[in-house]
């Protein structure tokens, strides 16, 4: 796409995009307000406002490099560990701005779990993979630990596969099992929200299907924000879809609406082109 056409598309983007009325009235667990992120002089995404609706599946789609993953990292303050990250705006969770210095990061990350692209259980036994974070968050009682591990593994449908080998190394599991283990490890901490950064992109189609079914099962109990490149995946699981695009090297929120609206009658021509697979 030439620079010229990019520009003409952007003219069509409303300057201060606001979600259509109706959507706004749903309770949002995470409320992103005028948030922008940059490193040194490079802007990752422009100020954007986006509610993440409670107990629904919110998908974030868009081409790679438009700042989707960075947005997720900002919500749980993983950006703290990147030098020179400059963040403006606010992210409200339970009426508190998580970007405040006073935020208790340990409990923030217990409330909002993050699942990464590449499943990465720690190189220790399956049991220890659960015990380490659980003990960190104050669960010391042995029976309670056992109960929580079993419940979490049952929630992700992994219990029958691993119950007899909890003492074995978690790295011996298959990719799909490892990803379910990572999700279970988060669920054991009883979070309110899950951020998933392309959770299926490193998995084969069968494992992807299992994870997608799991995500649908978790709906209603957890607020889910899933980043995906896979449009059909977003179509299959999402209730709400936010579409990000980039121009001049940085990301921008273009449109946010019900999944049906985004995929069938989006209001922005870039969205139309993207969901029809006409761009990129």
């Amino acid at each position, binding site marked *: 796409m030439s620079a010229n056409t990019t520009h003409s598309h952007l003219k069509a983007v409303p300057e201060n995009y606001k979600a259509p009325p109706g959507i706004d009235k749903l309770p949002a667990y995470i409320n992103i307000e005028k948030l922008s992120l940059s490193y040194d002089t490079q802007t990752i995404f422009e100020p954007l406002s986006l509610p993440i609706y409670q107990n629904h599946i919110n998908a974030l789609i868009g081409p790679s490099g438009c700042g989707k993953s960075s947005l997720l990292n900002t919500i749980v303050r993983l950006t703290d560990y990147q030098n020179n990250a400059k963040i403006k705006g606010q992210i409200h969770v339970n009426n508190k701005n998580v970007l405040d210095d006073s935020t208790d990061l340990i*409990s923030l990350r217990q409330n909002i779990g993050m699942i*990464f692209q590449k499943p990465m259980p720690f190189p220790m036994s399956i049991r220890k993979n659960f015990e380490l974070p659980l003990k*960190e968050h104050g669960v010391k009682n042995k029976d309670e630990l056992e109960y929580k591990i079993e419940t979490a593994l049952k929630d992700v449908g992994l219990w029958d596969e691993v119950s007899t080998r909890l003492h074995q190394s978690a790295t011996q599991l298959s990719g799909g099992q490892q990803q379910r283990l*990572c999700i279970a490890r988060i669920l054991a901490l009883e979070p309110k929200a899950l951020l998933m950064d392309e959770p299926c992109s490193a998995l084969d189609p069968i494992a992807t299907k299992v994870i997608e079914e799991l995500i649908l099962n978790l709906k209603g109990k957890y607020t889910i924000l899933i980043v995906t490149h896979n449009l059909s995946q977003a179509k299959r699981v999402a209730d709400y879809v936010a579409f990000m695009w980039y121009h001049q090297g940085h990301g921008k929120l273009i449109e946010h609406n019900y999944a049906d609206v985004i995929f069938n009658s989006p209001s922005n021509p870039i969205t139309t082109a993207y969901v029809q697979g006409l761009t990129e």
Partner: protein
Amino acid sequence: MSPLKRDRYLHLVLKFFACISIVSLFFVIFFLVTESWRIIESTPASKYILDDAWHPTEGEFFLLPMIIGSLLVMIGAMLLSIPVGIFTAILWQFYAPSWFSSILERIVEVLSGIPSVVYGFWGIMIIVPLLGKFQAPGTSLLAGIIVLTLIVLPTITLVANSIFQQVNKLHIQNAIALGLSRFTIICHIIFPQAKRGLLTGVILQAGRAIGETLAVLMVCGNVVQIPGSVFEPVRTLTSNIALEMAYAMDIHRSALFLSGLVLMIVVFMLILMTERMKNRENAL
């Protein structure tokens, strides 16, 4: 030249260079054994540990104090430098802001490049008089330990830092996202992965520490005795060779080569120990 042929030639060249290091090792061992053979065959081993004194020209070969001296200086320096080096590397890698890390990196790199004789000189001018104020004469086991600590510390810090850098970043990212504290992450995620590398790095430095000669010779006092406290002078095996080689002849000369052989056996045992520890790690 065809790629296959080139590969074969490269293989030969590599083999040749590998042989150089193997042959030189055997050459050194052979040389040490033949040169010290004279004293080995004429003197029973018990004399090295049971004699009264080190008077090699008069047939008294009390090597034990120097073996103990070498081991004490090395162990003391390692006990000080390992925790300081590893904690510095942890600060450097996981806690310090980037501007501080980069200053630290420059400083440690410069420190590791300073020749040991400079550390020895500094030891004589500063450390020895300072210790002398507490307890004369100042030249002592402790002075040796302090100077040797400063010599190995920068390298231990650099090695530890590079090993911490190799820990899988994704594990750390996952651990942070699970709300684990930095302390837990360091103890349970980073250390288990870094343990093996740290062990190798530390043992290599221990070998270097026990082999360090000049700086130790300058500050240790070089009296042949088993020290009763850290304030007493000691002589190490390396100092012994350096001090007497200029005028040693016949069996005396042979005794100095024996000092070298003993030193090599100690280093060899250190390496063997690391291997065993590593294998035990693997078995777990």
